[in-house]
Every structure is written in structure tokens, then in C-alpha cells.
């Protein structure tokens, strides 16, 4: 079987259920692939791993992928299993935040490490400075948990619909005490978990064929996961070596993730792409990317995989 390494963007959780299902249900094997899934973590930059040859395919968000491409990393989107964005800004109601117009003067928690681009372009579209100048917001680098909101160190924090939001709820704060701003609803959604490879892989026919088989099996995995969310969550749980994940949380996460993957057959929707690029370039004086990317995505793989 052909060996293939997949680098995830984050730790083993239902966010990546499709790949674990494909592995567990033998979809990769059926395609003649021997896939190794490498979990990510707070310090892992998947692009770096890809460039260093540690992985053949990576899962990444489009904003950071495009930024990396502009920085000189020749990476290309070959598939986009996630149709919608799960990103939100979650605020405590008691702080009095009701809409984006209330943001100035507030303290907002933001993930960095390449995950800050959606937030930054949203703020620049709103015209709110993030550099600490007057009339702007105070930005905190949020660690990997929801403490800042619970400890009231921030008025709002970044959350994912499928993960951190539920951690806030689990911490004993009920949904009606929270105000949430989904990026989708604010019209600033950018594409999340896509599959990326180095350009050189696409030029090589054998490699390209491997990728086709990989995407086909992965999408099969995703659709299986959407149909059997609880079973998929259990598969994820089986693959979690830390032993820290809980069944309830993963089942709930799988349910939320299914909503995000629902609209996608794997092929990147050029409209979504265009919207993401526009959003990233609209950043006023400090856009995330400065020029329209070229060749940053391809349908070649998905076309072959899905025919």
C-alpha cells in the first residue's frame, strides 16, 4: 500500500472524524493507502511540517494557508470538506455587549498562531483598531482554554461552535447568559478545515493519483460520520491516545461538526473561495494577504476523486 501522512491542525477530536472513520472503516485500505494521521497541537504549524517533509497532506484553515502561500510556501488546496465556518465570538451577557458596535473599549480573547486572521479581517471591516489605539479593542492572546471568559478577564472570547462554546456551557454558564456572534452570520466567514498539499505533489502523476484516492476515501469517511455521528465519535475516542476526551463532548462535537461539513462534497466552492479572499484582502492598511493568490486551489483532485 502507498504510504501517506496526514497532519491535523489540532489534537485528536471529532473535528477530524472523517479521517479517523476512513482509517477505522478501512476506506483508505480499500484505496490501497496506508495512512498515518498525525495529531497537531498548540505549537504545531502544519505548513512547517508539510514543508519539512513530515507530512504529505495537511488540514489547515484557508486564511493561514493563503498567508503562508504569500510568504513563499507553495501550498495548494485540493479539497474542502468543511463548507461553513464554525467560528464565533462569545460574550457574557452581563458585560452588556449586544452587537459589534459595542466592541470598542472591550477586551476580546483571540487565538493566534495563524488563527487570528479571520478576527483581524472582521475587525478591519468593522473599522475597529486592534492595536490598542483609541476607540479600538484590547486584544488578548487567548490560551487553549476558555478560562479568560470564566475568570472574567475578557468580555468576549473566540469559540468554535463545536468545541469551546460547549466548554463554556459545561463550566456552568447557561446559553441565555451568553451572546454569540457567528462569523457566518456576520458575513465574514472564511473557509476552515481544508486539505492542502505542496505544488510539487500535484505535478507528479503517481502522487496525484495517491491524493485522488486519499480524498475519495476521506470524503467517504466524512459522509459516513455525518450519517453515524455517535459511532464516529466513538471511533475518534478510540484513537485518542491521551485518554482525556469524553464521550459526551465528542458526540456533541460530532453533531456540530456534521452541520459544517453538510454542504460539501469535498470540492472547493469557488464562490466561498472568492469570498474568503475578498475578506482577507479587505483589511484596510494591514490586509492578511496583499494580492490575489494564483493557483492556490485546484479541482483536479476532487474532479478525479468524485467522478
Amino acid at each position, binding site marked *: 500500500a502507498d504510504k501517506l501522512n496526514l497532519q491535523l491542525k489540532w*489534537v485528536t477530536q471529532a473535528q477530524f472524524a472523517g479521517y479517523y472513520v476512513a482509517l477505522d472503516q478501512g476506506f483508505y485500505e480499500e484505496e490501497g493507502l496506508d495512512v498515518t494521521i498525525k495529531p497537531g497541537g498548540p*505549537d504545531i504549524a502544519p505548513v512547517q511540517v508539510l514543508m*519539512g517533509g513530515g507530512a504529505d497532506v495537511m488540514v489547515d484553515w484557508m486564511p493561514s494557508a493563503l498567508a503562508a502561500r504569500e510568504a513563499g510556501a507553495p501550498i495548494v488546496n485540493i479539497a474542502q470538506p468543511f463548507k461553513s465556518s464554525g467560528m464565533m465570538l462569545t460574550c457574557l451577557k452581563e458585560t452588556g455587549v449586544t452587537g459589534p458596535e459595542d466592541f470598542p473599549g472591550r477586551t476580546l480573547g483571540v487565538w493566534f498562531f495563524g488563527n487570528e486572521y479571520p478576527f483581524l479581517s472582521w475587525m478591519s471591516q468593522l473599522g475597529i483598531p486592534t492595536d490598542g489605539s483609541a476607540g479600538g479593542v484590547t486584544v488578548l492572546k487567548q490560551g487553549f482554554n*476558555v478560562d479568560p471568559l*470564566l475568570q472574567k478577564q475578557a468580555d468576549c472570547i473566540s469559540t468554535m461552535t463545536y468545541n469551546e462554546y460547549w466548554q463554556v456551557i459545561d463550566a456552568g454558564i447557561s446559553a441565555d447568559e451568553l451572546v454569540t456572534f457567528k462569523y457566518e452570520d456576520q458575513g465574514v466567514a472564511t473557509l476552515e478545515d481544508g486539505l492542502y498539499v505542496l505544488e510539487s505533489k500535484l505535478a507528479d502523476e503517481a502522487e496525484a493519483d495517491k491524493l485522488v484516492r486519499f480524498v475519495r476515501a476521506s470524503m467517504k469517511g466524512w459522509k459516513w460520520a455525518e450519517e453515524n455521528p455517535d459511532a464516529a465519535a466513538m471511533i475518534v475516542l478510540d484513537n485518542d491516545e491521551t485518554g482525556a476526551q469524553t464521550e459526551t463532548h465528542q458526540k456533541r462535537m460530532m453533531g456540530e461538526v456534521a452541520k459544517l461539513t453538510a454542504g460539501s462534497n469535498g470540492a472547493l466552492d469557488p464562490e466561498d473561495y472568492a469570498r474568503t479572499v475578498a475578506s482577507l484582502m479587505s483589511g484596510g492598511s494591514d490586509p492578511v494577504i496583499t494580492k490575489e493568490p494564483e493557483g492556490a486551489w485546484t479541482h483536479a483532485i476532487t474532479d478525479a476523486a468524485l467522478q
Partner: protein
Amino acid sequence: MRSVLPILTVVMAILALWYGAAVMLNRQWTLDQAARAGQDLTIAQIVADTMAQERPKLPAPHQVGAELWNTTGAMVLEGRAFTRRSLIWHGWVTLSATLVGFGIGTGLGILLAVGIVHNRAMDMSVMPWAIASQTIPILAIAPMIIVVLNSVGISGLLPKAIISAYLSFFPVVVGMVAGLRSPDRMQLDLLRTYSASPSQAFWKLRWPSSMPYLFTSLKVGMAASLVGAIVGELPTGAVRGLGARLLAGSYYGQTVQIWSALFAAAILAATLVGIIGLIQRITLKRMGMAR
């Protein structure tokens, strides 16, 4: 054994402080919950609640103790000592990287020290850079080390071990340089009157007289090695080991799990250091240096 009572007293004092702090820190959450539910709580209820929260800001000692037991002793009793939910298994993963890293770091440290003591050019050029190397935040370059090693095909235990070696070689260099230089002028002159060769001087004088320093630096190095292995686990994908447990606990706000992993790490460190202390005592006694 005279130390038992003082240690117990101090431990008791710390536990008392800890319980007090747990009540103070976790109180707010209890009160908030009660306010939301529209309840009024008595002091006793508040205190009881602060010690039994699922995600306390500061878990109470008995919660940590129970979690430690559940993930170690209880697992052993059930015969599941080497499953993923067992701290024994995670501890073992960390321990193996620690020991390999400690071996590499100590070896390298001793070699460097020997070079520094015997070669003036090395002494003058290497020492300042060894110091500078320790001011580099390891957490910052650990992912890069992992990536670079990955790209040349090395993965698994070794990258973690290299990070732990990076942290442990420094105390060994510093200690051994001091130790190998500890013979006084007269002891060295004595060998010169015998016209002893450098290697005779090393084995008969420098090496034995560096023993007390060696063991002290081994203890520091071992502790540093463990920290290195844990740091190395974070960017390796954080799938197993005590570092992964810490991270996962932190990620899901499971403070009890963080604290139990933390204590497991400290117990591991204390045990390893204790073992070196034991070897030290035996060796020095054999050498007649312990009185």
C-alpha cells in the same frame, strides 16, 4: 527519621493552606451558580461545594489524590495499568524519553566538561555559548527541532529525548567543569612530581575528585531532563505522556486532571532524583568520601 515529624508538619500546613485557598478561589463559582438558580447557600454548603466541583479553579487535595489513585493504583488493581487512561502508562512514555535524553545529555555534558578542562581554546569559546544556549526558550524551538528532525526522518522517542538532553547537558557541564577543576594545586603538583601522564592525572585525580559534583549535577540534570521530555511532548502532537495529559487537561479545563498529571510528574522527578541520591550515597561511601 528525625525528619518525619517536621515534614509531616509542613505537609499538613501546606494542605491546610491549600484547602483554604481552594475555598477562596472556588467560592465565586459556587456563588454564581447559586445566584443563577436563585438559591441561598449556608457557609457549610458553600465550603462543601467548593471541594467537590468538577472544574474547580483550584482542586482540593483530596480531589487530586482521588484522581491520582483512580489513574494509577486503581488501574493496576483492574489490570489496566498500561491503558491510555492510566497515568502509569503516560508516566512510562515520559520516563523513557527522559532516561534516553538524560543519557545523551549527561554523556555530552561530561565530554564537553572534559574538553573544557583540558583545552584552553574550548574553555574560552564554548562556555559563554553554553550559557547563551540556556537563555533560548526551549518551548519556542522545540517544535522546530521536531520538524527538522522529522524532515530527516527521525521521529518518535528521539526528538523528545534530544530536547531533554538539551536541557540536561548544561547543569552537567557546569558541575563537571567545577568538579574536574576541584583538585587543588598541591594535589596536581604531586602528580607532576611523579611525571604522570594527562590520562593518569584524569583517572587518578580529576575524575575521583569530581564525584560529589557529578552527582549534584546529575540530580539537577535529571529534573531538567524530565521537564525537557514533557516540553517535547507538547509539539510532538501531544498524544501520549504526562505532557500530553497536562495539555489535554488544560485544553478541556479539567483542572483536576492537570493537577494530578503535575503531581505525577513531580513524584516521578522526586523518585528519579532520589535514586541518584541513593547511588551517590553508595558510591561515595565505597570511595570513602562520605563520613
